[in-house]
Structure formats: C-alpha cells, structure tokens
C-alpha cells in the first residue's frame, strides 16, 4: 500500500475526528436537554470514553503527533467498546427495557459499540500512516501551528467536557451514578439530595 500523508494532513484528519466526537457529545446533550432523556451510569461513562478517545488526538493537535498518543486514544476506545458491549449484554435479555431512544433501529449503546470498535481500528491505522508519513513541509516543532478552525474545534471539545462535568454533578451530586430511568437532576430537585 503506497498511501502516504504528510503530518499536516494527518493532523487535519484527526481534527475531523475530534469534531465528530464533539458532534456526538452535542447530540447526547440534545437527547438529555431537549428530549429529557437523562443519561444512566453507563451512558455517563461512555461519554467519558469519548473524551478519552479524543485525548490522544487533542495532544497530537497541541504538541505534535506522537505514536503514544494513538495508544492513549486507542485505549480509551477499547474501554468504550467493552463498556458498550457490557451494556448490550445487560439489555439484550428478553423483557429488559432499553435505555434511551433508538436511532435507525439501534439503541445508542449498540451504536457506541460500533463507533468505538471502528475507532480502535482508526487509531491503529493512523499509527501506521504516521510511521509511513511522507516528508512534507512540516518543521519538527513541538508546538505545531494551528488554524482558526482547529482552535474552534478544540475550544468546543473543552466546553463539552466542562458541560459534562456540570451535568454529572447536577444529576447525581456527591452520590454515585444512578442507573437508567432517572427523571430529574438530584441537585436541582429540592429535598432529593438528602434522600438515601
């Protein structure tokens, strides 16, 4: 295979993936805030796995590409994939009620399993492409120059991670994540915080 990309092109590809992660986290907030489907414990943890997937790609954007960052992202994707698989096993039993809406016939945990599994392959593929990268005009700097679009996408990623932190706190307070079917934010519902 003679596919060769410059480091700059690889970073652009990774930026597109970070934008995709932002889109998924935004979509999760759409279901949470507009449709009123509060995330369950596994759902919250799957969101963190999406952040872990973005972690290595974000580090590549900021400090330049390093193969160890692909390992970090791939590890996050692996955890997300296994977590989604566990979620599917729990919900595959006859009579069990699904959590959240179905999208194109599959529930969100089935989609995340597919996405995370594809993401593992993406990280492996990117590591190979980096190893076989073409010599371009990229100077071996520790801090690569970034476009305005890159700043926008990375800023959105930071904002969404912060929003998830606020959401998780408002939803459960200082208690553990609650299983599916939660109807309201415990920190906003008077009296509920003190209940066991």
């Amino acid at each position: 295979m003679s596919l060769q990309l410059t480091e700059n092109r690889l970073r652009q590809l990774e930026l597109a993936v970070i934008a995709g992660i932002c889109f998924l986290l935004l979509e999760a907030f759409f279901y949470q805030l507009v449709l009123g489907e509060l995330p369950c414990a596994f759902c919250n943890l799957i969101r963190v796995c999406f952040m872990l997937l973005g972690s290595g790609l974000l580090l590549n954007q900021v400090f330049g590409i390093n193969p160890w960052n692909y390992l970090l992202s791939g590890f996050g994707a692996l955890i997300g994939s296994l977590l989604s698989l566990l979620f599917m096993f729990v919900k595959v039993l006859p009579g069990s009620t699904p959590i959240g809406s179905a999208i194109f016939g599959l529930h969100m945990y089935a989609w995340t399993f597919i996405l995370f599994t594809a993401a593992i392959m993406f990280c492996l593929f990117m590591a190979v492409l980096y190893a076989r990268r073409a010599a371009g005009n990229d100077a071996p700097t520790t801090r690569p120059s970034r476009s305005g679009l890159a700043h926008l996408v990375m800023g959105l990623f930071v904002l969404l991670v912060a929003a998830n932190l606020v959401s998780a706190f408002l939803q459960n307070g200082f208690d553990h994540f609650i299983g599916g079917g939660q109807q309201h934010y415990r920190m906003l519902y008077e009296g509920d915080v003190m209940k066991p």
Partner: protein
Amino acid sequence: MYIGFIPVLFAFAATLASFRNLALARVLWCACAVLVVVWTTWHGANHMPHLKQLGAW
C-alpha cells in the same frame, strides 16, 4: 466512594492540562481511564444477576 462526577472531573482536568503540560496531561488521562474501568466494574457488578441469565460464559 464511587462519586459519579469524579471520572468526569479527571477528564476535565486532563483536558485543561492538555494545553499546558504533556506529561501531566498523559498521567491525568491515564488516571481517568483507570477510574472509568473501576467505576464500570463497580456499577457493572449490580448487573451480575442479568448477566448470569445469558447462559454459559
């Protein structure tokens, strides 16, 4: 002990560190990954009765 927002807090701290310090960011992201595994194991343990119905493992 398994306070829900702690893994997300680590993710947020790691995200902020990702713009400043590479080594610290990696440590925080790895810690976040470990926390997600631990939190998943703890919460997943509640589903053992369901998983046992799935047949031979």
